[in-house]
């Protein structure tokens, strides 16, 4: 059972949904307040959606200096999985843990509605239970969701199979190359604008987001299997 730390910033508002989605997927999920620096032996860190610090200055710009973020960066540098959802994605970009940035939606308005994304890569800790090419219906709820990066960075993301989700049918916010989510070069840090935690059960309109959280558990199970084999080998 992976230990999943859900970081709570002042202004987070998807923390409870994210905790519930992780627990529903069989994870041992718990909150970590942004002033704490101890991630309590987390296997996975999730930065949830919301409006940390009221989106003052820029979305995520102030949260990235919260005391907890040094621990999140250390966890990420050690290869630990980190998922940023919506405001969490903005914070990861502001912190430099993901390239690029998120700007005002092209048509200015805050959007709260379903969107459709195609899974472009299953080689991340959060998408391994999906199939490449699957189209998911996930809610979006953002004003600053337009992913932008310079042409060089965009080319690197595309060439490195680092676009994890891409909008299909329409591009709600005008993001570069219809990008809805990306990962870092190490593939352990992932950001997504739509909200998988809001679509993880039929009662919430569908199960399309559930495997983001089930993938954490699957990764953990695989990791344990490898550990057990390694122990077995050393005894031989």
């Amino acid at each position, binding site marked *: 059972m992976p230990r999943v730390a859900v970081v709570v910033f002042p202004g987070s508002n998807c923390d409870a949904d994210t905790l519930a989605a992780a627990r529903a997927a069989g994870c041992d999920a718990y909150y970590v307040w942004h002033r704490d620096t101890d991630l309590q032996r987390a296997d996975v860190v999730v930065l949830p959606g919301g409006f940390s610090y009221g989106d003052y*200055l*820029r979305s995520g710009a102030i949260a990235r*200096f919260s005391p907890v973020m040094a621990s999140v960066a250390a966890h990420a540098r050690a290869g630990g999985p980190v998922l940023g959802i919506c405001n969490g994605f903005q914070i990861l970009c502001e912190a430099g843990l993901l390239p*690029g940035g998120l*700007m005002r939606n092209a*048509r*200015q308005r805050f959007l709260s509605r379903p969107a459709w994304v195609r899974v472009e890569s299953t080689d991340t800790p959060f998408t391994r239970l999906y199939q490449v090419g699957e189209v998911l219906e996930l809610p979006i709820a953002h004003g600053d969701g337009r992913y*932008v990066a310079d042409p060089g960075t965009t080319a690197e993301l595309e060439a490195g199979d680092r676009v994890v989700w891409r909008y299909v049918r329409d591009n709600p916010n005008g993001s570069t190359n219809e990008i809805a989510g990306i990962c870092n070069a190490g593939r352990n840090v992932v950001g997504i604008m739509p909200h998988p935690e809001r679509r993880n059960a039929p009662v919430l309109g569908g199960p399309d987001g559930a495997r983001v959280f089930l993938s954490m558990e699957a990764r953990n199970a695989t990791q344990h299997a490898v550990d057990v084999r390694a122990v077995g080998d050393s005894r031989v």
Partner: protein
Amino acid sequence: MTAYRVEVRVMPRAALLDPQGQAVEHALHALGFGEVARVRVGKHLLLDVEAASRDEAAARARAMCDRLLANPVTEDFDVAVGTG
């Protein structure tokens, strides 16, 4: 040490779409200001900075922009220091 009044201007990077600027431009055209073009909307910050010299105040303000006040991926900034 002197308190210098520092003005920081942060603008969306020129190559990037500025939907706020576009909306303002459309509104100005609708009001009959047809001569307006290429409107962009940014931020203007005023800071009092304690420093030994104007150059030091400017250097500190630029460091603040690099760390927090501007996002190097999406924004450009410039700094103007008033008299102490």
